[in-house]
């Protein structure tokens, strides 16, 4: 109704008393009278909307403020302009110059005119509305562009190269740019400051607050040593000028690369996760978000990242991403990712894979996503008299076709050659790889050419790990029953069903995981020691 009211208001003009239709004198801007407002609830609107033609204003009796105004202005006839059932304007006429009444011919002419003019007027209105909308949209897009530019300009252009450490970062703004940011700040004495933060709100306001926070934090970090003090100082700076209802969550930590010490303080930001040999855990430290209240203390904690440990700093865009049913990715799931996956850039890739599987194809990213990982290298795997750098030894696809487990066995044997495994140990790995690949091809990929089996070979923590993935999504089929040879010989169990049993007998550890349509069996074999049977 407000739309109609606006339209009507725009179109109604006070009719000049001396002018009439008969004169047909072209109106100049100077002739235009100010518009008459018809309130949305004025009964005149409903009357005009349903009138069958020109309305005799003087004869009309309605409890209508607009009608009183029209009469006072000397309007004799009001001709409703109706297009597709909608009142889009009113043509107001004063008395005829001849001072005679309007004839029925005049009224017919006016009705015809109104019938022709109304659709033309409507088209004009629509064009003008669309132009206004396009202008608004363009302004909005420009604002988003500006916000994006501000944010990207304040993100680190490059990440530091630290000996013995891998630093990786990922930042992707949502379409309506949120307020995420991260920073890596070189400090005196070779220490490095790491920041991940999130400003409430979106767009340009968030980007400006983010820029201010980052600048104050950088300056404070250079002058102060302790992360808690730095956040205290930043909070003091931000509080006086923080726009209403805005605040900043922020995690700030200082790494001493030589020792792995990581001191940190947290201003209400999502807890980072650290992955150690025993799993993953949150790093907790108490503190209020920045910019809410002055004089806030920030608890300071410290952890030590041992060789092989890794750390994930992240923003809520990860854990709060929804699947089509409205379920969030969640903190527990992210924690599990950190526990299950290797650290560094690979952790980011794997989390993103999981995240995309969770939100579904083509889903629009709801919020900014930021991840920063920090991984301390293992050093090297000691093998015999030498050493092999830890990490990925090989990665390949095996087409799903009968007999192709031999291909997987060959490729894995090549990949682990530098590890110089004993013959017995290598044979066990080969048998396990062959069986796992067979299972994956048969039960997971159903021997379909378009579903190759993925094989990854990694070394680290004194283990060689072979991950065999298929697209079956579920656990390996068929062989859940423990094989019992006597039952098989008696015909009580089928002769087959040895695959999983063999796999589990051959390697030191078997882990099965299913996620987003990908099913993975991980075989781990200790490089040294373990059960060696005939060695």
């Amino acid at each position: 109704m407000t739309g109609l009211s606006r339209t009507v208001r725009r179109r109604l003009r006070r009719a000049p008393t001396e002018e009439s239709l008969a004169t047909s004198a072209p109106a100049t801007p100077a002739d235009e009278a100010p518009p008459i407002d018809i309130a949305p609830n004025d009964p005149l609107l409903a009357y005009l909307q349903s009138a069958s033609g020109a309305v005799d204003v003087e004869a009309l009796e309605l409890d209508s403020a607009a009608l009183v105004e029209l009469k006072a202005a000397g309007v004799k006839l009001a001709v409703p302009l109706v297009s597709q059932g909608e009142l889009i304007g009113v043509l107001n006429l004063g008395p005829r110059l001849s001072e005679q009444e309007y004839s029925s011919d005049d009224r017919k002419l006016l009705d015809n005119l109104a019938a022709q003019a109304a659709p033309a007027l409507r088209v004009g209105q629509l064009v003008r509305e669309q132009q206004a909308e396009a202008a608004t949209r363009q302004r909005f897009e420009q604002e988003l562009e500006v916000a994006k530019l501000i944010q990207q300009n304040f993100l680190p252009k490059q990440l530091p190269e630290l000996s013995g450490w891998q630093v990786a970062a990922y930042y992707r703004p949502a379409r309506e740019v949120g307020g995420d940011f991260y920073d890596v700040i070189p400090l005196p004495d070779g220490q490095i400051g790491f920041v991940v933060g999130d400003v409430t709100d979106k767009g340009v306001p968030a980007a400006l607050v983010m820029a201010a926070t980052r600048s104050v934090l950088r300056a404070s970090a250079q002058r102060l040593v302790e992360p808690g003090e730095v956040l205290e100082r930043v909070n003091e700076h931000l509080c006086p000028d923080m726009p209403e209802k805005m605040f900043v969550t922020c995690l700030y930590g200082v790494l001493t690369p030589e020792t792995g010490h990581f001191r940190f303080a947290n201003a209400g930001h999502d807890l980072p996760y650290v992955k150690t040999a025993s799993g993953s855990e949150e790093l907790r430290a108490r503190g209020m978000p920045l910019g809410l209240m002055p004089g806030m203390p920030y608890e300071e904690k410290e952890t030590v990242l041992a060789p092989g440990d890794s750390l994930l700093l992240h923003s809520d865009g990860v854990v709060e991403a929804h699947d089509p049913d409205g379920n969030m990715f969640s903190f527990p799931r992210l924690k599990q990712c950190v526990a299950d996956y290797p650290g560094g850039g690979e952790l980011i890739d794997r989390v993103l894979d999981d995240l995309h599987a969770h939100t579904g194809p083509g889903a629009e990213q709801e919020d900014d996503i930021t991840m920063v990982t920090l991984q301390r290298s293992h050093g090297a795997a000691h093998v015999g008299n030498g050493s092999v750098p830890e990490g990925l030894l090989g990665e390949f696809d095996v087409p799903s076709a009968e007999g192709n487990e031999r291909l997987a066995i060959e490729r894995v044997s090549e990949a682990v050659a530098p590890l110089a495994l004993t013959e017995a140990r290598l044979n066990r790995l080969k048998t396990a790889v062959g069986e796992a690949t067979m299972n994956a091809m048969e039960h997971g990929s159903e021997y379909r050419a378009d579903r190759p089996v993925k094989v990854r070979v990694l070394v680290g923590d004194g283990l060689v790990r072979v991950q065999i993935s298929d697209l079956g999504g579920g656990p390996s089929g068929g062989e859940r029953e423990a094989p019992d040879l006597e039952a098989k010989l008696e015909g009580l169990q089928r002769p087959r069903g040895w695959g999983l049993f063999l796999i589990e007998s051959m390697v030191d550890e078997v882990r099965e995981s299913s996620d987003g349509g990908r099913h993975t069996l991980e075989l781990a074999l200790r490089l040294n020691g373990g059960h060696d049977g005939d060695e």
Partner: protein
Amino acid sequence: MATSEAPVEVRLRDGVPVIDLAGDVNRSAEEALDSAWAQATADAPEAVVLNFAGTGYINSTGIALIVGLLAKARASGIEMRAFGLSPHYREIFEITRLADFLAINPDEESAVRGAGGSADA
């Protein structure tokens, strides 16, 4: 990747049927192994010896085939022996408990002798 079909042959050594397996013992060996078994047991011998010296790869399907042969042997009261297994596959025969039901000998000589074969036969 093509699997090499095992050319399975049967011969008599000192009166004992010896089945010489070759190549891969997997699904592709099923037919050859079945007909070799039929041939080796045609005269209802007391024992049959499996020679694994020519095989390089036995997978779980191959294990299942051997379990199938062993079931047939037990049903007909035929003793089964094996030799020529690499240490790795010997370990697998032990893990799967196949070694509890068929005697594993280090070589053909001892297998045939264990199966009651004699040079005089």
